[in-house]
């Protein structure tokens, strides 16, 4: 007889199993205890290797409660069945498991046989599980632990980020918390283990607290963090091409574009130390060759752009200075109410980052984009200035290690093109059926059961899918090492503070 902790149950026959892809087993628990959990990895040892499977569902059965009419009649005197029958002795738990792979000779192969009825189902040992899931135990990012297992989830940097990452969840499910954990991991990396430059578009000012982080909490002597307020962000007008400028406008006509090109070409020759939008307006006004309607349209449009106060002679901050290995740059857009201003900054930044990365002027970087559905929505193209540029990074960035991390609480509103380019996804609790359907459509390797499980995830629990794991994996995100000192997340505490 084996020690009880080495056994979880025994494979049983069902109408269509065990088959190559799934099997069911009766658990060894006595009825009241829970020894197998939904989402848990289990194994069946065979002579060809170890079949690794995951519990998809658990069914409890009891012959005394199989006939509704008998249960009702027996209890018609007001006493439970248990008062006269040993109902607990007929309680069984049937676990339905989906086969994930065959672990043999230290590598995973596709399962090609069905486990035998009567086979013993056991827990998967931690080492095998880590190897099977492709978790990097040395040098990986310590993001949490596997749900139902004492195994650290430490995907390697390359596996998690090199082909873009999407973080999807409903509000309050733990997205921002996870991003904080991810940022802590990126900041705490040593030069030897490889450091990535990180830029985060902080729409709500949630990450500015990191500016005050004590490096020792991350086990480092110093960390480099730059906090850039949106109102301090300035785009150098002379760095913009006509097409670049035109991208901030809605449907500029070819005639307007041609005239503007000519005007800017003239300005470039006349101004050695850069020019402003006001200079362009003045030049348009003075140019007599431009048709009156075109002139008015151009002046109106550029004046409108000028009123954003985002444009000037010099670029602030300078991208080349801002992007350095191991450095975190927080672009804090919480000062802006105008979505257009946010979009202009994101659009410009995305363009600058990619072009400078292409030319090798900046190191590989990770651009983290909060509320990504506001910047690259699936529909309403005319209102999404940065969409094309983000899509370009999504499509082409990986070749230059210009990496994206998109965060959204409305996946259904996020560009399908961008989402489908995010090879890795961290999906937190999500209950909106449209969002779930969208996630299911755009995520390869996510099955119905995993999709259903997303609705029942706890706060701080995520489903990782993509290249960072061999199979979709449920992870409990670890605690932050450094917490925001003045965070007010509780309504009660907040109203008390204001109601003194």
């Amino acid at each position, binding site marked *: 007889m084996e020690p009880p902790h080495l056994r979880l149950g025994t494979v049983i026959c069902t109408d269509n199993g065990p088959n190559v892809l799934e099997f069911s087993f009766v658990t060894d628990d006595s009825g009241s205890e829970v020894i197998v959990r939904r989402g848990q990895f289990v194994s069946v040892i065979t002579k060809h290797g170890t079949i690794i499977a995951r519990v998809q569902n658990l069914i409890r059965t009891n*012959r005394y409660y199989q006939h509704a009419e008998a249960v009702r*009649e027996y209890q018609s005197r007001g006493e439970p069945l*248990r008062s*006269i*029958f*040993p109902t607990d002795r007929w309680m069984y738990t049937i676990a339905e498991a989906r086969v994930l792979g065959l672990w043999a000779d230290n590598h995973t192969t596709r399962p090609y046989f069905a486990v035998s009825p009567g086979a013993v189902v056991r827990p998967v040992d931690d080492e095998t599980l880590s190897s099977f899931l492709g978790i990097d135990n040395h040098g990986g990012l310590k993001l949490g632990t596997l749900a139902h297992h004492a195994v650290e989830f430490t995907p390697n940097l390359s596996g998690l980020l090199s082909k873009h990452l999407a973080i999807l969840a409903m509000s309050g499910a733990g997205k921002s918390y996870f991003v904080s954990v991810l940022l802590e991991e990126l900041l705490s990396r040593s030069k030897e283990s490889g450091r990535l430059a990180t830029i985060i578009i902080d729409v709500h000012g949630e990450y500015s607290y990191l500016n005050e982080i004590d490096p020792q909490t991350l086990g480092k002597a110093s960390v480099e963090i730059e906090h850039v307020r949106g109102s301090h962000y300035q785009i150098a007008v002379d760095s913009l091409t006509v097409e670049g400028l035109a991208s901030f406008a809605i449907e500029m006509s070819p005639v307007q574009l041609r005239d503007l090109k000519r005007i800017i070409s003239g300005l470039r020759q006349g101004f050695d130390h850069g020019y402003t939008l006001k200079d362009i307006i003045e030049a348009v006004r003075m140019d007599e060759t431009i048709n009156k309607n075109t002139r008015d349209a151009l002046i109106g449009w550029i004046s409108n752009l000028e009123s954003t106060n985002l444009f000037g002679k010099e670029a602030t901050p300078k991208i080349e200075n801002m992007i350095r290995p191991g450095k975190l740059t927080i672009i804090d857009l919480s000062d802006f109410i105008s979505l257009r201003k946010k979009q202009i900054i994101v659009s410009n930044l995305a363009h600058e980052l990619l072009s400078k990365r292409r030319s090798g002027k900046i190191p590989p970087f990770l651009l983290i984009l909060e509320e990504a559905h506001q910047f690259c929505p699936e529909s309403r193209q005319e209102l999404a200035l940065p969409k094309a540029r983000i899509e370009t990074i999504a499509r082409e960035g990986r070749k230059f290690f210009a990496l994206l991390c998109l965060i959204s609480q409305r996946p259904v509103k996020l560009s399908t093109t961008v989402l489908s380019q995010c090879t890795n996804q961290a999906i937190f609790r999500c209950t909106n059926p449209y969002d779930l359907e969208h996630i299911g459509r755009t995520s390869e390797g996510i099955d119905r059961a995993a999709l259903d499980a997303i609705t029942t995830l706890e706060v701080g629990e995520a489903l990782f899918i993509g290249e960072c794991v061999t199979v979709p994996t449920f992870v409990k995100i670890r605690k932050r090492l450094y917490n925001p000192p003045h965070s007010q997340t509780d309504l009660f505490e907040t109203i008390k503070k204001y109601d003194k």
Partner: protein
Amino acid sequence: MDHNLDRMLFQLVEEIKRIESIRTKFGQVMRSIKPDIDLGRYPSISSSLLETAFTTTVSPTSLSGLITAGVDGGLVKKRLKSMDLILTRGISVVFRFGTGEGPDVEFVPNPFPEPIIKPVMQSLSSVELDQLASLERISTEIQVTLNLLKEFHIDIILIDGSLIHHPRDRPSTASPVYEKYQETLALYRQLYHKVKKSRSTLVGVVKDSRSTRLVNMLGEILPHIIRKPEVFEKIQGVDYRWLLKISKDSDLLDTFLDEGERTFAFRMSYELGDNTSLPDDIKNWASRIWITYLKTAREDSPIRIEVLGKEGVDPVAHINKTLSAILPLSYHHPEYGLPSPIVEADARARITNHEARLVIDRLLALSGLSYSLIEQRRSRNPFGG
């Protein structure tokens, strides 16, 4: 639907309606006169009885502190080409009622005992094979009960079925099954002796009794009872003689026993009569077994209960005490009035076809024989069925 079949079914329905109508009317009469029946006035039956009242109301007692056991046996016969297989399984479930939510339960020999396989190489007639199978099942049940008595102190042991074999299970002295019959009788003797020495009460619970002894007794006393004008007036027009001829005890009693009510108790020896071929000592034991019918559930027919009397204990008090514990074990389901230990034992003792099939398959695997060599033609129909 075929017209002939329809006609036949229609006739059958009419017949059923007629019987039910007479039975209901008879029940109404009996219900009104049962409190007044004094059995002591009828010498032909009173010598076998202890009570003079026709019915007695049983008061349910608290189960707290009661230790009771249910014993049942499962049986499957498999006819193979060169031999027959008899599979039996006996189990006892011990219910220990305390102050907790429900009973604590133990099992003898274990919660899921394997079936006992008895190969029968001799060539037996169908009747003999049935007798042998039945005796095997009884033996298994008695063995389990004997083991139960060794291991536990039980207040009431409820055996599923009668406390003595059915007359049809007795083979002729020349039959090859006779030896098994003698063995079974020896086990009965052991059981009665063991129970006698213990403080346990042995009870047989017969689910679907086909006995007509009580009906016959009623047939003997009713002509006297209806001499009273007021009774005669009530029963006038009810063809009770015909009804008594076609009715079984439990069916007839169902028409006038109330829930929680039992009939008078009579000795089993009275039922067996003088012509029984049982050995004398078994006959003696049979005279100590008391039979009564208890209506445990409102919509279920009364169950036949056989109680082995205790020496030095007033049988009526003993029966009432025993039934006062059986009633609360049985009255929870309005349409199914069996004691819960019997229900549990029945579920565990039953040998399913699937299980029997596994045994045959294992036999084939071990012997290397094929289905065609071992299975009868009727079991090998290539089209199934």
